[in-house]
């Protein structure tokens, strides 16, 4: 009976078609929004993987550096142990980006400090091995900086997408959490502490 009446009434048919078309368009729009969110999220994940690779690379340089330096500046063994400890912490903090950022920037700081100390030892400064390590470290620092920049750019775009209005509804419904930036901390106070360590 309902079939008959709808078939008989052209206005009903028209409005039904319009309704269906609108629903279809809406569905397409939602799918597009969802896909965009997924793309952006996977981009941030890839970017993070890149950062992680570069950070690991730096961590892997630490034992070599320590081995190379040890014979020359044995009197600074505290700096070396601090550094090993910081490296351990940085690796342990791999789960949380914020904690990782803190640990990694401390590690970077102590590495820079160690290099400065090594500069002061003429025999070490001339060592071929040391020069190579220094170059490697510098290149890695560069890569970390750019990988982090890409990660932060991606996060910013993703977070903006998650927070903007039509997409934010989908994001909340499907648990798209905003990502955390990987920011280097301003660690001036800590600087002083580390300088104090090596002041001796």
């Amino acid at each position, binding site marked *: 009976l309902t079939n008959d009446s709808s078939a008989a009434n052209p206005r009903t048919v028209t409005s039904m078609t319009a309704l269906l078309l609108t629903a279809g368009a809406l569905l397409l729009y939602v799918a597009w929004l969802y896909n965009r969110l997924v793309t952006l999220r996977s981009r941030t994940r890839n*970017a993070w993987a890149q950062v992680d690779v570069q950070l690991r690379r730096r961590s892997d340089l630490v034992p070599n550096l320590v081995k190379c330096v040890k014979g020359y500046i044995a009197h600074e063994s505290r700096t070396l142990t601090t550094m090993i400890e910081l490296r351990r912490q940085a690796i342990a903090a791999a789960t949380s980006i914020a904690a990782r950022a803190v640990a990694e920037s401390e590690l970077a700081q102590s590495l820079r400090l160690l290099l400065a100390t090594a500069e002061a030892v003429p025999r070490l400064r001339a060592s071929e091995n040391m020069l190579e390590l220094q170059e490697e470290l510098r290149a890695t620092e560069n890569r970390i900086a750019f990988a982090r920049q890409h990660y*932060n750019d*991606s996060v910013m775009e993703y977070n903006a997408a998650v927070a903007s209005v039509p997409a934010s509804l989908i994001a909340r419904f499907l648990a798209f959490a905003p990502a955390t930036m990987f920011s280097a901390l301003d660690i001036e106070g800590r600087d002083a502490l580390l300088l104090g360590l090596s002041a001796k």
Partner: protein
Amino acid sequence: MIPPAPPLPSSAAPEMIDPPAPLGVEAPAATDAITKVSFFDEQRRRRGQTWRLSLVCLLIALALGIAMSTILAPLTLGIAAGTLKVAALFGCAEVCSKSAHAIGLFARQEMKLLIVIVERGSRAHSAAEKLIVIRDILIFSVALLPTMVAAAVAWTFIRLSLRRAGVLDLVTSTRARRPRAEDRKERQLVNVADEMALAAGLPTPRVLVIESEAMNAAVAGASHEAATVLVTRALLERLNREQIQAVAAHCIASIGNGDLRVTQSLLATFQTLGLFHTVLDLPFRWSAWRSLGRFVRATFDPRVSPVDVLEAGYGIEETFSHESMNPSVMMIPLLPLRFVMIFQRFILLLWCLLILKWPLELLWRARRYLADSSAVQLTRNPDALATALSLVATHADIPSGGESRSYLFLCGTERKRRGREGIASGMFAGLDLEMHPRLDKRLKRLAAMGASSAQGEANRRSLLRGIAKAGIVRASLFVAVASPFLLLAGLAALGLVGAVIWLSLFTVEISLVLGFTLIAFAFGR
């Protein structure tokens, strides 16, 4: 989508890269207030511009395509009928000659319809009469379908073959080589490209060095995955690390933004047009046969090397150049036909030069600005790009072998400096175009993104800003004086476009009548 960028966290390795550009910070009072923009806003603006211009280009290309299909409709029908006639000699004589006859009859019918359209069209005044004419035109346009389908197929295949070959020809024609690991500058280039790819989140592109005195850099390749960055030796020698980084960032940003795909589409469009031309030229030029054969092979045979695809492309693109228009003496019996054809070519050239030229140039320039602003995003160092650009542009030269693909380079040679022999360096598919933005405009945009070294350039007065600064009275006076001239110029431009359109319609009509008459005469009796 992207809100104005907040200041990004400053770098942990300050000696490696400069602090980020002061985004969204007001210009200091000393500099003549240019509005600062963040590179995100600049990118969004250029993306929007690209979309609009692509649409315009697409529409114009479509119009050109329709015009070409109209001109070529008789040819396609003629070829089809001729093939059927030949096939009739070898068997199934009845069916084939009947079909050929049907085509001939169709041509006759279309010709009659055309004459009716022209007659009615000139007398139509009321809306109803005009509607009838439009209906007739629609009926008539059935004849265009085969050619349009052929064009679409040709475009798709050309695009595919270009995609397969990439624009890698640039690599072979400029004789680029791998960077040497023992050379400090070249190793630096590789590192820098690596870093920029990391910053862009792209796979590291292949990096090659061109031994050349010209300072320039270019991109080539088929896609993100198979992209190549080419840098000349002179550029490596004269720029410092940060500037080389900025150049590499520009190239990689261009890859990441998909410029290579844009190029392929544009080239495919031009080559389709060129293909039709070559077909039209077949009776008059031996070289047309040769380039057509090579082209067909390059397009449909996947085993052909990139270099051959390219060579074939050149052969086709050559049809746009003026030399191929010269009629040769031996064609005297075909002269009337040749005359019509030269006219068609002339019309097409006019269309390309007067109408397609502007959006095409603007489109590619928008892509350059987009790559510039993306490069700033990658390096966070607008100054390095600004200084690198001004250094490169003042010595800008396309390394030998790259002239025909000069639009892929960082900077083009400026029109002023292009001599007689230098004309080729602005070529796109054989047309003399200005594909790069002017240096001062580029520097101005970079200054707006925070390059302090480009401030001076940016403060140079432009006409509009001069008017804006002159105060309301003087500005209105200026407008009052200038408006008649502007009006005149506008009218002249309109008249020119009108003349081109009228000429095109005339040509189309002549070629259609001529073509259909020939077919009807040959097959429709």
